[in-house]
């Protein structure tokens, strides 16, 4: 019965997006760590995740959203920018790192505020 409280599609979607942001952070951290590894190809969040999340959200099915799993994948669109075949560009990685941190702030606040609203509904007191 208690699970019902945490099964709204919007809450699940926010949680999954937070997971995706964490995976993306791992991808960017790895790209920066392998800045000078010859032949390294940059990785990113699997591009199919976005479509899957879109589809699951528009279906409104909580089960479908809960089953989503963000994964890492090689970024096939990145081109090697040096002769050693490495496709990491430090400037763009740093930019994405900061974007991702902001996305993380947004998502944690979303999840937090949803929990707060729930708490408010249960206790009848604000904050």
């Amino acid at each position, binding site marked *: 019965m208690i699970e019902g409280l945490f099964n709204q599609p919007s809450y699940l979607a926010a949680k999954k997006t*937070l*997971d995706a942001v*964490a*995976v993306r*952070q*791992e*991808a*960017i*951290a*790895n790209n*920066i*760590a*392998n*800045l*000078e*590894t010859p032949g*390294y190809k940059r*990785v990113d969040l699997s591009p199919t995740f976005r479509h899957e999340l879109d589809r699951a959200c528009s279906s409104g099915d909580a089960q479908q959203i809960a089953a989503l799993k*963000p*994964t*890492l*994948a*090689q970024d096939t669109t990145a081109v090697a920018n040096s002769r050693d075949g490495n496709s990491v560009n*430090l400037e763009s*990685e*740093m930019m994405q*790192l*900061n974007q*991702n*941190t902001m996305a*993380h*702030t947004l998502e*944690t606040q979303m*999840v*937090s505020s949803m*929990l*707060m609203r729930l708490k408010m509904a249960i206790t009848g007191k604000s*904050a």
Partner: protein
Amino acid sequence: MIQPLSGIQNTVAALDAERTRLDVISENIANANTTHGLDGKPYQRKVVVFESALQQAIGAGGNASLTPQLRVARIDKDNRPPVQIYAPGNPEADERGMVSTPNINVHEEMADLINASRAFEANLAVVKNEKSMAMQTLSIGKH
């Protein structure tokens, strides 16, 4: 399960490798004028050789081969010949008055130094961001 700080091992490995590279570069610069090393020969430039290692613990992404770990494979000697300069007054000079000096180009070392410290800084920025993200994650549910 997605863990906070999941990509940190690779960042730490990269920081470690870049630190070694910085050490080797500073050693090269320090010995740019050493004509008589421990083996009696002029100092030979050292180069760090990096390699990728597969991460032991598989992170949230699942596929370890996508995210190799950077590490120092070995520190090699640069086999370029020593630079010959004419200095007949130098006690190290041979019968033609030539002195063998280390095969180090300080400008090359400085460029490498900047590269290595930029890479180090970038990894440090990742650690900082990762930490602040983990703190935010931990504060979910507090106001």
